[in-house]
């Protein structure tokens, strides 16, 4: 119960600040918290990355192994994305199989990578029709202080950039870097009344989980979108969100170039 009261107080605070045109942490409406990307932190994984956006932290590990291709794509590698919202990351996360939030998170991250064709899957065929590389992208939340979505998407592409295909271990040739040819970036905003708050922190989300995620590729094409939350979105806000997301993604993409 005390939690609910606290939430209400936070909500009032966020809203009263917004009336003055400010965010509770002093950021501009379209300003991200500080982003840090560290790669290669898990040597047992084929690729890995730790991304921090403010206090939010996510680790993504990439594991690869040979496996059977899908019958309709006999010469293409396969991407499998999974997310675990482990109880260590938030008092509201429970142990057990992924709930709808974890599933949505994994699927939206997956869509960004898949639809931008970031990984050249045609270079991941070992033996046509029988053996291709499986890429497991596992998202592991460590600390949820808001916007796990963007942190996870960023960590996923950073981990892929860091991935070496373990061909020698499976005796199918020489190791080679995973062919990554695009840099999809997800930008999530919170829609509060008539405001768009990019990269919402946990306290801001107390006003309602009204999210919109737009993922763009390096040519500014939109490759994935997801409206998440029980709210109604106006057309004007939607158009505004597209422009903001493209602009922000360009900035974040610069960070990936140093990875």
């Amino acid at each position: 119960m005390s939690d609910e009261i606290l939430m209400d107080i936070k909500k009032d605070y966020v809203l009263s600040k917004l009336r003055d045109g400010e965010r509770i942490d002093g950021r501009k409406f379209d300003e991200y918290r500080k982003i840090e990307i560290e790669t290669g932190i898990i040597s047992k994984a084929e690729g890995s990355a730790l991304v921090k956006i403010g206090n939010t932290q996510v680790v993504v590990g990439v594991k690869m192994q040979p496996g059977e291709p899908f019958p309709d794509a006999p010469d293409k590698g396969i991407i499998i994305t999974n997310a675990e919202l482990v109880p260590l990351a938030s008092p509201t996360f429970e142990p057990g199989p992924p709930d709808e939030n974890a599933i949505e998170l994994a699927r939206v991250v997956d869509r960004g990578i898949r639809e931008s064709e970031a990984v050249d899957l045609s270079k991941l065929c070992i033996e046509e029709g029988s053996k291709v590389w499986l890429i497991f992208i596992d998202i592991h939340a460590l600390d949820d202080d808001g916007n796990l979505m963007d942190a996870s998407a960023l960590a996923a592409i950073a981990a892929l950039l860091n991935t070496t295909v373990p061909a020698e271990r499976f005796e199918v040739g020489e190791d080679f870097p995973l062919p990554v040819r695009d840099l999809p970036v997800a930008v999530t905003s919170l829609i509060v009344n008539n405001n768009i708050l990019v990269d919402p922190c946990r306290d801001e989300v107390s006003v309602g989980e009204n999210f919109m995620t737009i993922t763009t590729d390096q040519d500014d094409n939109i490759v994935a979108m997801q409206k998440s939350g029980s709210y109604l979105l106006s057309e004007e806000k939607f158009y505004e969100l597209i422009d903001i997301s493209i602009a922000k993604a360009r900035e974040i993409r610069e960070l990936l170039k140093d990875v």
Partner: protein
Amino acid sequence: MNEEAEILKRVGEKPQLIIDGKRLDGRDFEELRPIKIEAGVLKRADGSCYLEMGKNKVVAAVYGPREVHPRHLQDPSKAIIRYRYNMAPFSVEERKRPGPDRRSIEISKVSREALEPIIMKELFPRSGIDIFVEVLQADAGTRTACLNAASVALVDAGIAMKGIVTAVAVAKVDGHLVLDPMKDEDNYGEADLPFAFVIRNGKIESISLLQMDGRMTADEVKKALEMAKRGAMEIYKLQREAVMRKYQGEEVE
């Protein structure tokens, strides 16, 4: 469907989807598939609807407002809404394993979120409104077909709402935007963009569901939205007619 496309499909190649300015099933770019809607088709449910959209066949049922089980889910200030999207094992070419998979869990979530804002939940504290949709036959666009059916079922159940939800998708195939894509256009197309709108007093007021996968420019997305809005208005008319048909047919006691 033309023969050439059938053969290409069998060998796993992408068929040409637009031939002489027409789609494989003969439709224009901005033409919906034939739609059939019938309200009140299930006896036990409080509200129900059967809907066909091209080859899609779906049934929606609404139960409630009713007591919530398990009881700890009750909300003393408003009703809770549950939405379950489920595909029958025989609804697709290759048998689908029964039960929820990741895709249907995601669809259930975003569909519930599309309907929640229009249901006047505060009128039914401590109660639950359950919406169940079953896909009997699938041919792309099942989430939109199900939402359209669920919307009518909610009206049929007499649930107070601020508007009606109408959903339709737009796809990009062979470089063209097309309304209400069917299976091949969804499989081999470049992008798929499902929308749901809230329609109130005969006008589109806002967007309640929006997803996208594929690749589109910002301008194409804007054009797709305009196209979807026109399509939604057509579907809305049919939803309205279905409700009217049922209640005009009933004798007044």
